[in-house]
């Protein structure tokens, strides 16, 4: 179809309406394309309750118009003013955020200070509301955040604010799309790039993340990416926390009995945490049958426990403790095998048994 400008004169008006909504509502969160059958002589832009809607009749025409103009600008056939380009880009990216070329044009505008980085972050958060698993959006946010943090006069309070905003947004994105790898990966990047390095604040943050991922796992048992994130957090905790950081038990929210006294030393504390993790997993596996993700997380926990026991200096940890853990594992897996009614849950349990025999024991020896 032809991409001529005068085919759709309402395009400019619709783009102006969209821009207006962004300008007047700084707390805008969501964007939807509203499926409508007919169209009346009314603006297709709907704004209610911090949500932006665009009626579906205009989407195709609007996108063709915007695409044509942007490509002409990019290939220098017909240059536009930067403000116009920014408006066109926002329209194009709302409808089709997977176009890397347009995000790059937006980056150019931010570089030349035609568009403010904060304004752009607000915009891409709305786009995420529409397509929560779009990797281009996350990459673009990374670029903008890196740029903002690298500025010479950046305040630590501001960085903290960005951090909190990113954590909130990634959680929202993860809740809108099952097993949202891009969102969890971005969260991991945020922890590495924006978190305060070392000191009490980092430890506070890690404790908070651990608690959050525990709640998340209980509510989203099959979120593989969420579990992977929890694994990352646990690994970071074990590598950075010292003995005294583990002392206060309420942090872990797991008031479960464990074979090892956490107060002894940091390795013991780590082992204690892992044991409690196993118990939590057992509970979840029994309650929600048939989720492979929980079994795989069990494998991670066992591996970590093995590593801790092998490399620990403390007398209480050692082969005997580990063997007793493995014994109870076998018992649990066999019981699930016997009692579960689902065929594939049996499969999971028996594969777990196999894994213990063939993989774990071998690496232990």
């Amino acid at each position, binding site marked *: 179809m032809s991409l001529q400008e005068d085919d759709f004169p309402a395009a400019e008006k619709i783009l102006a309406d969209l821009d207006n909504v962004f300008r007047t509502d700084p707390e805008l969160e969501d964007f939807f394309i509203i499926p409508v059958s007919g169209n*009346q*002589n009314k603006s297709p832009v709907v704004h209610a309750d911090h949500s932006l809607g665009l009626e579906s009749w205009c989407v195709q025409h609007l996108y063709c118009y915007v*695409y044509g103009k942007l490509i002409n600008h990019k290939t220098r056939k017909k*240059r536009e003013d930067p403000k116009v380009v920014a408006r066109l880009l926002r329209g194009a990216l709302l409808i089709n955020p997977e176009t890397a070329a347009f995000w790059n044009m937006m980056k150019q505008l931010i570089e030349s200070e035609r568009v403010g980085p904060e304004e752009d972050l607000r915009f891409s958060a709305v786009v995420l509301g529409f397509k929560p698993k779009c990797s281009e959006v996350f990459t673009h946010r990374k670029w903008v955040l890196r740029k903002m943090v690298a500025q010479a006069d950046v305040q630590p309070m501001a960085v903290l604010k960005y951090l909190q905003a990113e954590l909130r947004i990634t959680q929202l994105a993860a809740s809108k799309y099952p097993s949202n790898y891009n969102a969890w990966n971005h969260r991991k990047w945020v922890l590495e790039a924006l978190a305060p390095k070392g000191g009490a604040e980092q430890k506070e943050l890690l404790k908070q993340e651990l608690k959050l991922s525990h709640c998340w796992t209980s509510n989203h048992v099959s979120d593989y990416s969420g579990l992977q994130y929890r694994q990352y957090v646990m690994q970071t905790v074990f590598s950075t926390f010292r003995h005294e950081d583990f002392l206060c038990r309420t942090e872990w929210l797991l008031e479960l009995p464990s074979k090892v006294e956490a107060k002894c030393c940091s390795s013991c504390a780590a082992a204690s945490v892992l044991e409690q993790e196993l118990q939590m997993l057992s509970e979840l596996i029994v309650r929600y049958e048939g989720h492979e993700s929980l079994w795989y997380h069990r494998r991670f926990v066992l591996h970590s426990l093995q590593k801790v026991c092998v490399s620990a200096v403390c007398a209480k940890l050692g082969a005997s403790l580990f063997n007793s853990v493995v014994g109870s594992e076998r018992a649990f897996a066999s019981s699930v095998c016997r009692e579960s009614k689902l065929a594939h849950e049996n499969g999971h349990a028996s594969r777990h048994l196999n894994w213990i025999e063939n993989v774990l024991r071998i690496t232990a020896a």
Partner: protein
Amino acid sequence: MVKPWWIPSLGRKKDHGFSAMKQNYIQLTRVFLDEEAMINKKLPKELILRIFSYLDVVSLCRCAQVSKLWNELALDGMNWQRIDLFDFQTDVEGIVVENIARRCGGFLKTLSLRGCQSVVDSSLRTFAQQCNNIEELNLNDCKKVTDSTCQSLSKHCPKLQRLNINSCSAISDQSLKDLADGCHQLTHINISWCDHITESGVEALARGCRKIKVFIAKGCPNITDRAVMTLAHLCPNMEVINLHSCSSLTDDAVQQLAENCLNIRYLCLSGCPNLTDTSLMTLAQHCQALSTLEVAGCSQFTDAGFQALARSCHLMEKMDLEECSLITDATIIHLAMNCARLEKLSLSHCELITDEGIRHLSTSQCAAENLTVLELDNCPFITDASLDHLISCYNLQRIELYDCQLITRAGIRRLRNHLPNIKVHAYFAPVTPPPASGATRQRYCRCCVIL
């Protein structure tokens, strides 16, 4: 017998082999290397220069790469009197401006650096020093330009007549004071969106540049009544005044403007919400030459003011009455009766307008010949009946009907049947034409596979 050389030899077998080709090649190169080559022989340098004077920047640069002769002629200062670098925008940096300045020297009369955001003061200083005859300079959107540039212009460019420093947000009153000192020939000045400019700058400018005819100052909220009054007193020849969004202005300023500048033909007071009918009445009293009036957002204006205006300003051609929400059909009736030259009328958001007003408009003197643009968007009482009235406006080119909920597709179709060239702007989606049957393969852009 020796055969004379001019008689061609007959019957000799031509050797079409390699040596013949080589001979042709030698002959060709001789023609091109020779100064006697065809185009240079037939066209004297003056004519080539004249032809080059019509070319744009890109073509001139390409011609300059053809040969030494063309290089000299294409880069001759006479072809570079008017330069517009908008299409190059961010590629234009300081060094480009300086090279142009050196190359063109005193020949350069018009230069547009609109949108060239990388241009800085030092390059413009070089430029001002080299190009003393500059008459028109456009620095729209050159955000890095500061007062130092205007100081350079004031020192070196006394012939400057038109200056556009729209959106150069670093400019302050000092620039205007310097311009007032050095550039007395200034007739056109555009200082829109330079929000540091206050009344003292404008007053200084008015005192130094008495010949100002065009004064454009959109979005300068610090321009007060006093500034406008001084400007009006000192520059009575003003014809074009744009004070869009100078929101602190009141009726007093407009009164002084009307009383002193009798030649005003274009006046924009959009976004000045403190103005009342008094302004319109003083304009009616003094400025009969008014042909364009933009008062969008002046929501206190009523029918009474426009009645007075219409009765005296018969030359009115373009009016923008967007958001003057108190006006009713009465205003339209007065405009229809008195302003025969009306071409462009905007009544956006004038919520009290009905079909009756449009009916009067369509039977007025301006309708058949002159009316080309009519904006009725967000007027909720307009129905298809208005469109039926407008079929008699043969020159109507564009009509805006956004958010007029009572308009239907059928009404628009009827209008289009009578006025085939009209552009109707409404929120109705365009009907995609059926695919062309036969030869042309349908082409889809990759992005259209959405939803």
